[in-house]
């Protein structure tokens, strides 16, 4: 994996809302998305772009990754978004409507040119492509591999299902295929897989159940549209006591095996190999991020 930034939650913040932009760091999300695209009416594209640029220039956001969803370069707004925002060095661009590797290469080249012009380190602005069409879905792997800037793959459930002509359900069966393929393409490319939004902000149970499921599928995080969804997603991403305990025992057994210089490792009669160790490390990292583990390894009460 190229990048270990924790992205359990990516919180959308409308780029034309100064109150939310100013307070973006207080909602507890791992990553925030200042949105210049779908949250902004056409007549306000200019004002959102200027406001987000000024916020990035003047404000500090400690402890949160700041990303910007710019408009696609195929729209009349995309190029101006890139030109105004790249010089401020956001952590990443979220690129909507990605359909082909060529879309990503065009964006990569423009970012490289703008990084050079504004004297910020080359390659510092990462890219998280958003797949929102059937064509994009069918080209996931070539998209994932199209640029070294890519750190995660994301898909947009509403646009994607609209393009397919699928019906949205609470259970999300219509997303089974794109979810499986997003995770697979992300793993092949060595990047994170991020799930789309859950739109009913009043249905915390439905959100929790969905996040448990997408975590089981292999996703590393989920986009959220309301601050109240952040804690629910983080709770669902926090491993269970049993997972944590097993992971701790795996690492301990591995250390003991290293001391004894024994190559093969077993725990409870089961073979422990590199993927099991890697999973154990990931679980403990998630547990710590959820503040689920004290130093001595016991769990905090919620």
């Amino acid at each position, binding site marked *: 994996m190229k990048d270990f930034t924790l992205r359990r939650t990516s919180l959308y913040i409308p780029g034309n*809302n100064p109150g939310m932009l100013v307070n973006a760091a207080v909602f507890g999300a791992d990553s925030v998305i200042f949105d210049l695209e779908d949250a902004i009416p056409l007549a306000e594209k200019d004002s959102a772009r200027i406001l987000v640029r000024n*916020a990035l220039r003047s404000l500090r956001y400690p402890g949160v990754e700041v990303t910007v969803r710019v408009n696609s370069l195929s729209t009349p707004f995309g190029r101006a978004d890139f030109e105004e925002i790249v010089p401020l060095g956001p952590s990443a661009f979220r690129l909507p409507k990605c359909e082909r590797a060529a879309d990503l290469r065009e964006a990569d080249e423009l970012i490289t040119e703008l990084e050079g012009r504004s004297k910020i380190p080359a390659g510092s602005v990462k890219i998280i492509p958003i797949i929102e069409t059937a064509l994009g879905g069918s080209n996931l792997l070539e998209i994932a591999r199209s640029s070294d800037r890519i750190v995660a793959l994301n898909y947009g459930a509403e646009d994607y299902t609209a393009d397919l002509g699928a019906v949205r359900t609470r259970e999300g069966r219509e997303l089974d295929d794109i979810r499986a393929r997003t995770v697979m393409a992300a793993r092949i490319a060595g990047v994170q897989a991020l799930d789309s939004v859950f739109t009913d902000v009043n249905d915390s149970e439905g959100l929790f159940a969905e996040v448990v499921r997408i975590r089981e599928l292999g996703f590393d995080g989920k986009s959220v549209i309301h601050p109240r969804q952040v804690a629910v997603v983080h709770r669902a991403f926090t491993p269970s006591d049993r997972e944590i305990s097993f992971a701790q025992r795996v690492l301990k057994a591995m250390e003991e095996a290293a001391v004894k210089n024994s190559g093969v490792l077993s725990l409870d009669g089961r073979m422990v190999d590199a993927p099991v160790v890697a999973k154990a490390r990931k679980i403990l990292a998630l547990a710590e991020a959820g503040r689920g583990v004290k130093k001595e390894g016991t769990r905090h009460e919620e």
Partner: protein
Amino acid sequence: MIRERRGQAGSLESCDALVIVELSEEKKGILLELDSPSLLSYEEAMKSAVIETLCSLGVADALVKIQDRGSLDCTLRARVETAARRALAFQKHGGTI
């Protein structure tokens, strides 16, 4: 007759400011009407933000009306810039946009 070359940006929501910039053809400088709950503490800083932003866009003569709702400096500057750019675009395109 002097054609109206006017741009507006922002809102009356909390933390925002509603800004109207009317470009003037007469050399009157910047006329500023500022209404804000923060005037007592920040009037001078706010005036500087407005003047600096307009100067950076080459606007020297304009009537600027601001209804501030507790905006931060970066927000006020953004709203003034957007309103001024809209007024300038209106001027450039002869009011056709």
